[in-house]
């Protein structure tokens, strides 16, 4: 099927994009990489009257180091998460997650900001903003603001973004020498959506965990932090008993959806297996 007819406007600046959206009311959508939006339009799940192309807005480009964080422009493509040296050095968790995002041709076009804005609960990057304690930088009709990732994902494909707002960048604290990270997912086939996926960022004092953020995806309506598992690990070393305690705590953190194909108990089991593997890797100092 083809998309329903729409008008197209290519914005050169953020103000132009916001202005166009305001004039079209609720009947407009921003398009960046479009790797999820175009299929949604083709299936007529959405039928906006106006498509506002934001891919030529320079202010949304680029990855820069600003003080204690990286500013990752919303238009940074998934393939750039793999090729950009600043990401590899200062946000290695994103670099580790990037090869798991869809497949190469999608990564060549899809954008980081677009993925976070869509907030697909099965996507890698929205969950990683939780693990990284990132801040989402937003521009909208009532000005600019920042929202912590912890406060950004509200429900199924629902975020703190208000109508007419767009993500301009994501700010990620710089990775430090006292930190370790781990990422993996379980999928039936590379490039498919994960049955369950997880990313972890931990700060160590000697071999004890001082702080840890564990983010799961594909286990509920939103990307989800495993706060009970985190609490079970803080202040402790990563021995087998602690890992088992964190795995047990997941039951209180995750509420996998009903599904004939992957029952909740199976997804919870896979989450525990995955968490065990990742904590094992962290314990080895990876």
């Amino acid at each position, binding site marked *: 099927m*083809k998309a329903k*007819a729409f008008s197209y406007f290519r914005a050169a600046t953020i103000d132009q994009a916001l202005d166009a959206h305001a004039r079209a009311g609720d*009947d407009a959508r921003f398009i960046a990489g479009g790797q999820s939006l175009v299929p949604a339009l083709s299936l007529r799940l959405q039928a906006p009257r106006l498509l506002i192309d934001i891919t030529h807005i320079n202010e949304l480009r680029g990855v820069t180091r600003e003080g204690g964080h990286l500013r990752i422009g919303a238009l940074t493509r998934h393939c750039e998460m793999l090729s950009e040296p600043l990401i590899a050095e200062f946000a290695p968790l994103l670099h580790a997650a990037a090869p798991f995002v869809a497949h190469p041709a999608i990564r060549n076009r899809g954008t980081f900001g677009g993925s976070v804005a869509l907030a697909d609960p099965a996507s890698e990057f929205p969950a990683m903003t939780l693990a990284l304690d990132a801040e989402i930088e937003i521009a909208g009709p009532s000005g600019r603001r920042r929202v912590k990732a912890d406060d950004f994902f509200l429900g199924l494909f629902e975020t703190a973004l208000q109508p007419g707002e767009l993500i301009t960048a994501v700010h990620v604290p710089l990775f430090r020498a006292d930190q370790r990270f781990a990422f993996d997912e379980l999928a039936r086939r590379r490039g498919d959506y994960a049955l369950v996926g997880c990313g972890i960022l931990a700060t160590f004092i000697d071999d004890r965990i001082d702080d840890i953020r564990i983010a799961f995806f594909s286990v509920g309506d939103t990307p989800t932090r495993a706060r009970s598992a985190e609490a079970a690990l803080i202040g402790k070393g990563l021995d087998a008993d602690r890992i088992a305690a964190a795995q047990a705590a997941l039951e209180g953190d995750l509420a996998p959806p009903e599904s004939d194909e992957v029952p909740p108990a199976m997804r919870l089991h896979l989450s525990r297996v995955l968490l065990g593997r990742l904590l094992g890797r962290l314990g080895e100092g990876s």
Partner: protein
Amino acid sequence: MSGFEDSLLDEVDETVRIRLVVNGRKVVCEVAPRHTLVDCLRDTLELTGTHAGCEMGACGACLVQLDGRAVHSCLVFAVQADGATVNTIEGLTESGVLAELQAEFHRRNALQCGFCTPGMLVNAHELLSRVAQPSREEIRDALSGNYCRCTGYEAIIDAIDTVAKARSENGGAT
């Protein structure tokens, strides 16, 4: 000056003039905004080597190079590509960059119906441009977005692997 005219909102069926460089030639097309790049290539420019399969970004039959990177031409509206450089299977074939891959696909019977083959070749070409000596696992990963419902993939992976090895034995010359 916002650049946005309210009259745009009343013109949803109007066509737009776009300029592209397709296979090294400048072209001008009239497209409706809802027409995808693959529609434009096939229907307007009659470059039918790019195949429209799932039109959802899953099958990979429609891969083209857009500004030098392989993308699904079914997931890009033609208007978004205004000003871009596009290389299709026809242009890449004419330039000769695919010759070894095409010969090896042929020799190994790495195709049957051939519907997926243009996308496979565009993808394989990009992989080998980026990674000189990919492992079979890397080749499989790279092909994860290209469906072939005939061959079971082994012959395709063999063909790409053979070309990669031959090139590296020739001192990396392409």
